[in-house]
């Protein structure tokens, strides 16, 4: 029997829970940082709903309180968020059968954490006509947790001591999602090259290192894929959704 909408949605919620371990302290840290830096609490909280992208919100606050020209602030934030283009393109084939409201809603909810969990479900073997409900479940769980945790940071302060190192839970979750994926050699090459370039470019401005790293990794993946299977170009097409 195929899973129902409800089953998919709840599976999405469950898939997001481990990420919240790292996201909740991060949200509290953002909220506390924003008000401490001098931003009005209403605006600090609203930014979590309007922008909804953790790292870039830190950058935005830092530049706003330094009185940097508005255009520079906005452009810098957008550069930090540029990687979402890759997520948007990567998920596009799976959602193109959905109507506009669905796609516009899912785009608003698209984050690192929602992408990482949703793409694993889309690529997973278990068939379902309702994988977008999984996407919605996992994405909206992160959204709610982000609003609540930044609210806690803004209005109460941060409750989690740094010595707990909970910030490390987020990379650990990504390791859990990444490792099973890297069993194919082209994917492994993509990961290795992207990781190395990201380490080299860690201090490059505007988070540009991550974008260059992703590009280099994708190029490495294609190159190895073509070298391994030169006769089967059709296999390159991403399978469309259900």
């Amino acid at each position, binding site marked *: 029997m195929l899973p129902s909408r409800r089953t998919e949605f709840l599976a999405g919620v469950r898939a997001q829970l*481990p990420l919240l371990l790292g996201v909740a302290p991060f949200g509290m840290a953002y909220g506390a940082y924003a008000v401490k830096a001098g*931003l009005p609490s209403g*605006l600090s909280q*609203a*930014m979590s709903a*309007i922008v*909804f992208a953790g790292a*870039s919100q830190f950058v*935005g606050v830092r530049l*706003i309180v330094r009185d940097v020209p*508005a255009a520079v602030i*906005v452009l810098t934030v957008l550069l930090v968020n540029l*990687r979402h*283009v890759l997520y*948007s*393109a990567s*998920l*596009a*084939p799976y*959602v*193109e059968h959905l109507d*506009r409201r669905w796609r*516009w809603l899912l*785009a*608003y909810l698209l984050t*690192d954490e929602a992408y*990482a969990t949703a*793409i694993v479900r889309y690529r997973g073997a278990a068939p379902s006509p309702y994988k977008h409900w999984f996407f919605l479940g996992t994405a909206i769980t992160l959204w709610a947790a982000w609003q609540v945790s930044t609210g806690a940071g803004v209005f109460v302060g941060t409750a989690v001591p740094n*010595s707990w*190192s909970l910030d*490390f839970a987020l990379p*650990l*979750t*990504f*390791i*859990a*999602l*990444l*490792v*099973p*994926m890297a069993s194919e050699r082209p*994917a492994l090459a*993509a*990961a290795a090259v*992207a*990781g190395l*370039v*990201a*380490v080299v470019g*860690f201090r490059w401005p505007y988070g540009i290192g*991550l974008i260059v*790293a992703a590009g280099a*990794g994708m190029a*490495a*993946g*294609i190159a190895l894929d073509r070298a391994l299977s030169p006769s089967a*170009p059709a296999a*390159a*097409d*991403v399978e469309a959704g259900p």
Partner: protein
Amino acid sequence: MRLWLIVLAMGAGTYGIRLSVLALVHHSALPRTAREALRFVTPAVLCAIVLPAVLYTGPAAAFDAGPGNQRLLSAIVAALVAWSAKNVWLTIGAGMGVLWLLQWAS
């Protein structure tokens, strides 16, 4: 008022980036190489997020690839657990467990 406008522009631009291919461009309109490349977005981006987070540590985010890097050791254990158990909670548990143990012992 000015601050609200800045935040609204940040949000609108970010939403535009997220919408871009997902809702505005038809996937099949992308060139073949781009579609091929998209299969590698997930491993590439995830590793590009993870590796710096593991190798640049401490309050100053200093590079450390040596055996004294507690996060590196924890991440290696987590990767081994992820490989054998293929379970997210176990991976986090193992990684955080090793990290706390190392922090406590040092």
